[in-house]
């Protein structure tokens, strides 16, 4: 069995990265170990905990269920690359205010998940005030510390803020794919 390396070129947080990777290296390990972007975390490595969430071509995905070699030619964003994004900044501020994190292990992924959710609401105007929808969205992300109440509370606050101010549509919002 061989462990060949493959050359890849991708954009990570806006910068072109060229590297050689082994086929079995998953994307989140590549980001953490080779690029030292340690904001995305590794929990379960089988898609359940969500700690490894990153954005690939604008959509959130499990970094542990993607291979680095598969990201060749694609645009990858981690929590580090979202600094300065207005919606992300609001989320971060309100997470702190609501005490929606303790150890912070789940936080980068929670933020990315919430960011995609709120961007989609703003894009489609489809939200009806309903915490179940928020709970449902973040239910793919495990938090061992805070309990989810304060996370849901934080996401809802930012959601209402953005929903009632549509002109403040998030810059750099992901395009979760056009509806066909």
């Amino acid at each position, binding site marked *: *069995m*061989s*462990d*060949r390396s*493959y050359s890849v070129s991708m954009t990570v947080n806006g910068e072109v990265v060229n590297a050689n990777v*082994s*086929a*079995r290296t*998953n994307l989140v390990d590549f980001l953490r170990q080779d690029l030292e972007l340690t904001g995305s975390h590794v929990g379960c*490595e*089988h*898609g359940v905990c*969500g700690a490894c*969430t990153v954005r690939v071509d604008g*959509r*959130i*995905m*499990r970094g*542990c*269920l*993607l*291979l680095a*070699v*598969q990201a*060749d030619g694609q645009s990858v964003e981690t929590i580090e690359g979202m600094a300065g994004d207005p919606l992300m900044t609001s989320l971060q501020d309100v997470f702190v205010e609501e005490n929606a994190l303790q150890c912070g292990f789940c936080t980068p992924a929670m933020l990315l*998940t919430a960011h*995609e*959710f709120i961007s*989609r*609401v703003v894009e*489609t105007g*489809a*939200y*009806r005030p*309903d915490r*179940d*929808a928020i709970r*449902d*969205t973040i*239910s*793919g*992300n495990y938090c061992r510390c805070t309990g989810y109440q304060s996370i849901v509370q934080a996401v809802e606050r930012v959601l209402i803020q953005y929903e009632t101010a549509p002109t403040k549509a998030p810059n750099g919002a992901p395009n*979760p*794919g056009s*509806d*066909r």
Partner: protein
Amino acid sequence: MKAYPFDYIRAESVDDVLSALDRYGTEARIIAGGQSLMPMLNFRLARPEVLIDINRLAELSGIEDRGDHIRVGALTRHVDVARSPIIARHVPVVAEAMTHVAHPAVRNRGTLGGSLCLADPAAELPACMVALGADLVVAGNNGRRTVPADAFFMGMFETAVDDGEMLIEVLLPKSGPGTRSAMDEVARRHGDYAIVGAAAVAEMDGPAFRDLRLVYFGVEDKPILARETAAALIGQSWSPALAEDLKSTLAQDLSPNDDSQASSAMRLHLADVLARRLLPRLADPDGPHPSRTENESVSR
């Protein structure tokens, strides 16, 4: 844990995939969304010599209205199926099922074809294919063949896709004016695989069942069509009296698994509960049947 080493081939066409399958035989594994295969690799439950990546095959993606049926490419992502107005309009049971499949990040990557080829007995989409009577198109080096959903799912993680073949697309019959459908499941947490679930597609004659395909998942090793139960309902209108006899006909249709999640008796009970939820919805879609999807349009 980390995967065993493997080689990687990025396929650019269906022919590329087929020739790689031909060359590597059972040492090769196709990777679509990877949302099931990657966990198996990471846990070292699978040990292929080579992965054939089909993610760049644009021809395998997309949803198309072809008159009497809808074509969905095997590589179409769950999220795109879930949000498709074509699916919502013409095959609503699939749209409803998608709301039960995993979470946003998994739906952004996972594919319809991957879910069908995996053939997890507790998965929603295989059961929907059987309820709809969909056709699945499989390609191999000898050309393409069409497999009816009834014959596609053969057992636990076992399908009619032979070595050297791949799934290309599914053809979903459109709902006619008298067609109604519904699905529901019982799971430990919304988004998890079902303990027991059911998908139903019916032809109605006013309130009476003219034809009914009620398919259970999570009950046996593949989706099970409840034939006796349907036969007992056809020609009848839904009434609470009908519900009384359901459990005994379901017991003729289903031999539920007994495992750490639920006993066989528990599964039969849940099958009955689901039938009592779904059948009234088919008989009277405007009736008071609270459905999760109604108040959750956003995360879809």
